[in-house]
């Protein structure tokens, strides 16, 4: 039902998430933001079971900010991803597992851009491109064919548009608009919503 996608370039990461918050068959909200800002250059995209997403994502968000307050410097994306994975894994075999699928995207001064794919069983993988949701079945092969490690920003946005067009064409559910953000050395930039959302 929900869709996340991330594409890593040589010096940026482009991420997008759909904007629908649904409750059984009703779209309750058309402009729901599924991205959580962990720090100036790290975004966590979170989908999954209704309450678990916000609960888990805010828990990670607050802990990352606490680390910065205690130690004076921010966690790197790799460290944040591993911290998230550890927490998800710890809760997995407890009485209250969190059923969430995540994408963590960030830019590190030393290592450059990074995109991390994590699923609800807390499997973590650093990947050049990744997607979550039923839409992923339709769009991963497009990413396979057209992705190159030296994409420019415009080419990455075009690739993203290709994926969303395919979703519009073949996915049974209506996902009218997507929030798009780009992370590079200057921080997180909001980009225009694709396609144009309903008024």
């Amino acid at each position: 039902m929900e869709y996340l996608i991330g594409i890593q370039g040589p010096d940026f990461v482009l991420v997008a998430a759909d904007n629908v918050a649904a409750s059984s068959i009703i779209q309750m909200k058309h402009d729901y933001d599924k991205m959580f800002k962990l720090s100036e250059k790290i975004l966590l995209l979170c989908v999954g079971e209704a309450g678990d997403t916000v609960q888990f994502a805010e828990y990670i968000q607050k802990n990352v900010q606490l680390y910065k307050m205690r130690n004076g410097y921010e966690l790197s994306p790799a460290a944040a991803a591993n911290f998230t994975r550890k927490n998800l894994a710890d809760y997995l075999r407890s009485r209250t597992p969190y059923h969430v699928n995540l994408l963590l995207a960030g830019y590190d001064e030393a290592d450059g851009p990074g995109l991390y794919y994590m699923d609800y069983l807390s499997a973590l993988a650093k990947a050049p491109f990744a997607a979550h949701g039923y839409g992923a079945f339709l769009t991963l092969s497009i990413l396979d064919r057209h992705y190159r490690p030296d994409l420019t920003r415009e080419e990455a946005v075009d690739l993203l548009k290709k994926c969303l067009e395919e979703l519009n064409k073949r996915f049974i559910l209506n996902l009218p608009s997507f929030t798009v953000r780009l992370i590079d050395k200057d921080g997180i930039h909001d980009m225009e919503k694709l396609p144009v959302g309903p008024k």
Partner: protein
Amino acid sequence: MALQDVCGFLETFDDISPCTYQPNEMGYMWRTPFEFDRDSAFHFVSPPQQFRRKNRAPNLFSSTFSSLSPHQPFQLSHGTTTLGFIFQDGVIAAADTRASCKGLICCPISQKIMPIHSHLVVNTSGSGADCMLWERILTREMRLYQLRHRKRLSVNGAAKLLSMMLHPFKGTNVCVAATLCGWDGEETQATLKSCMEITDVKEAVEQDSNASTISDESAQGSVKMASINEQAEISKDTQALNPTVSDQNTNNVLSTLGRRSGPRVCYVCSDGLQLKGEIISVGSGSPYAYAVLDDGWRWGMTVDEAVALAREAVFRATHWDAYSGNNVDLFHITAHGWRRRDREDLKEEYYREREREKKKIKEREKERQKREGDELVEGEAYSVHCG
């Protein structure tokens, strides 16, 4: 066994046997919240270890737990229609009044919209008992916050608080879907003082008379001030009853919409979903209500239009949905507080609509005949002209 201990498997079963297998399934649910009655403000964050039992069905590890889930006497569902939306002049909260239990109407005159404090009401749906309990817990926590921090908690803050309180019960049978409708406002010295001191009705009545002159201008006259009725019906803390708090800088509040103050509507569900929005409708009748609301909602609506829209939405939903019906309750919340409209029987509305339809059909018939008559005349004129 060592592995069993490490995984925490079967750990809690011994502890919960005294309470789980009682003949009254809801008995153990009622007990757990009272365990929380301690002094700490965060005692509600996690339930005591021995009572925690999560039955999450779609999970590999809980397949053995499912055999211990309590036997439900009937299917719990959100059989209702409630809605809330914001517009330029405040918030409208509307709901039907039917409480159903599978195929039986348990109560045709239940009240689903409950005031929390002067500027916040909550539309409840889900299990009736859970809603009543959680509404009272929320009222208590909000009053405590107000006393401790000397200002009212915002609507979003109240939603977050309720969501956090409900989170430990996720996976159990607690079924609450609440829509918080209220006005976030800035407090002046006068209103602060009034909030702190109100314990007697006399002061409330004095402020009522001061505020009513200001609020009547904005109330458009069609909405009745039913504060006296409310005090008789709901016997609770008088703070919650005070419908109008005299707000010295009302005009400023109304002009600073969107940022610090203004109308707010927020949805909180016991499975954790929390949404802020402009139009929220919950329950089995909500799709029908959404259709009417989406068609007619504009930010710049007048109070009359908004009230009419809400009534129509609930009416249409009650027409199609079997689990909604009887009457419609309407609350209007502004910077001055909430106002309750008289309860209306939708049966009357149905018959009135039938009458209106009949009249419309007659008018259309007349118009059509008139048009045909005109065309005949024109046709003759044309033929005369040509000929």
